[in-house]
């Protein structure tokens, strides 16, 4: 019976040592002549896109997932790529 409180304490200590999930703090980044970010109508619909690959990489490391980095081009208000 005395082992139960000990196990509970160990479990609590292990939980406390877990890393917190990184916060999304990156600012949007693009390359190209305009230098400004343009969202597209599908942003945040379906796939949970993050603004920067740096941010996505930190979260993927925490979640033990891959980083999916999609390069596209063009005026995102149009139907383009």
């Amino acid at each position, binding site marked *: 019976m005395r082992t139960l409180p000990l196990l509970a304490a160990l479990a609590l200590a292990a939980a406390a040592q877990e890393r917190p999930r990184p916060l999304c703090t990156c600012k949007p980044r693009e390359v190209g002549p305009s230098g400004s970010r343009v969202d597209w109508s599908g942003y945040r619909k379906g*796939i949970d896109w993050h603004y920067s690959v740096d941010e996505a990489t930190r979260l*993927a490391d925490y979640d033990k997932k891959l980083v999916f980095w999609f390069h596209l081009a063009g*005026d995102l208000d*149009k*139907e383009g790529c």
Partner: protein
Amino acid sequence: MRTGTFSEASVVKRIGETCVSAWLNKRPAMKIPDGLYRGLGWSFRPNNGSASHNLTSILAHPDGTVLLAMPGAMDAPTFLEQLDFALALRDRMYEGGVRRKDAEEIRAAAHLKAAESVRDRVRSAAYRRMAKQPFTISTFPLDLFEDLQKVYSGN
């Protein structure tokens, strides 16, 4: 891709389960007129390999290692096939989350084998290019595949 393949429920679900995603517009000032693709019959699904100068899908390990990079549009089955390739490659290159000493040899061999087995010309060329040289997220050239533009061939 963003209005077709990435709107399909099966793709959204699988990406959410296995990836954290980000996009980069490498030519935000480029103008693509509405209706351009309708004339090519792209309203139902994207043609694999098309627009390889504009689109690239990169799948990487969180340590930065690019596991797969594939240019051009992909329909849902093709995209999911690439995702499975990258996940399987990760599992072979890393043991218990630790990169194997022969990981680079495993990576290059997997791409070379894929290049020889796939029939699509653009995909085969991309695999072959990836087999030659390792990339990381920070070293990946934005124009790596821009010479592989494929004229629509219906596959």
